[in-house]
């Protein structure tokens, strides 16, 4: 559709901080459905190893933008900026810098009474994403 960017967000559940009860698997089996979607961007969970390898979507969906999930909203530790940069650089094997967005893996409070984090940590995670983007912009002009 012209005049607006349409994204589709996919994750593996965000209701529990217990990673063991959340779903696990890469996007391979969804590719036939995803390839048919008339949208501009896939906003995908990738900060957790449960999401599998970036190659899976990179090889098939790089004609669209990727909203790359680089921080896990459910953990208390803030992801190191260098790790975020490295993840984005892996995605650069398939995507141009203007196709690549950096975002959280999911929301911080999808269910009102079940926020998966506190504001102070959420804010620090956003700062880490912004810091990584600055480094990437200086490296890939």
């Amino acid at each position, binding site marked *: 559709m012209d005049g607006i960017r349409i*994204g589709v*967000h996919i994750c593996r559940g*965000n209701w529990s901080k217990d990673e063991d009860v959340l779903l696990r698997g890469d996007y391979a089996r969804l590719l036939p459905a995803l390839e048919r979607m008339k949208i501009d961007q896939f906003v995908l969970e990738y900060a957790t190893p449960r999401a599998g390898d970036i190659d899976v979507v990179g090889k098939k969906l790089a004609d669209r933008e990727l909203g790359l999930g680089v921080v896990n909203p459910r953990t208390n530790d803030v992801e190191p900026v260098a790790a975020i940069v490295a993840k984005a650089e892996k995605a650069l094997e398939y995507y141009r810098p203007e196709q690549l*967005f950096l975002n959280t893996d999911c929301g911080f409070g*999808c*269910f009102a009474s079940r926020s998966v984090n506190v504001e102070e940590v959420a804010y620090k995670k956003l700062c880490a994403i912004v810091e990584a*983007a600055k480094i990437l912009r200086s490296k890939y002009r």
Partner: protein
Amino acid sequence: MNAQNTFLTTQVGSWPRSRQMLKTLRDYQKGRVSRNEFNAVADGEIRRTVSLQEKAGLDIVVDGEHRRESFYAFLTDKVAGTQLMSLAEMLDFVEDKAEFEEMLRTMDMPASAVKNPTCIGRLTRKEPLAVGDLHFLRTLTNKPVKITLPGPYLLTRSMWVGALTGKVYRNHKKMADDIVKILREELLELRDAGCEFVQFDEPVLTEVVMSEECQRRTFM
């Protein structure tokens, strides 16, 4: 390409709710506070969430979904033919109660915290789902904004509760036709109002291919 159009930063949508926001939401749902009072509290929370994103330096901001019960259950405020039900309340209507309880237990899914927008009548849009959110966001920031909406697949899968919805729609597909119509109307209105980015949330897609039982329904 301008450097500012590379590696754009944003977040997926929702922000942790404060104790005051959660209490006001519950009071509003029980009719103890007016819609204006509810919105006044939510406006303050959204204002803080937007200023934090600006301070962090995000390129595209969201409102944090403070007005929403959840990223999809908020639909019951906006769409006729729906009823907000806790998973505990839904126990009376699911086909296999024991299996449903087992699913809640093993998934660490809190039956009282998760509420479902169950379809109990013909679905029509009473009011825009998020156009109001867009207009309020615009008063707070000059940055591009992203509006989040539940995807059609998530809604079709969660809203259909056979014992109730089956009295209104012949099957899932008939109900889905109305869901798509509502989402499409909303998308066009958001575009015409100048929204830069709409994100449809479809977490349940992974459930279909990754959960052990494809038929299992988590209503997440």
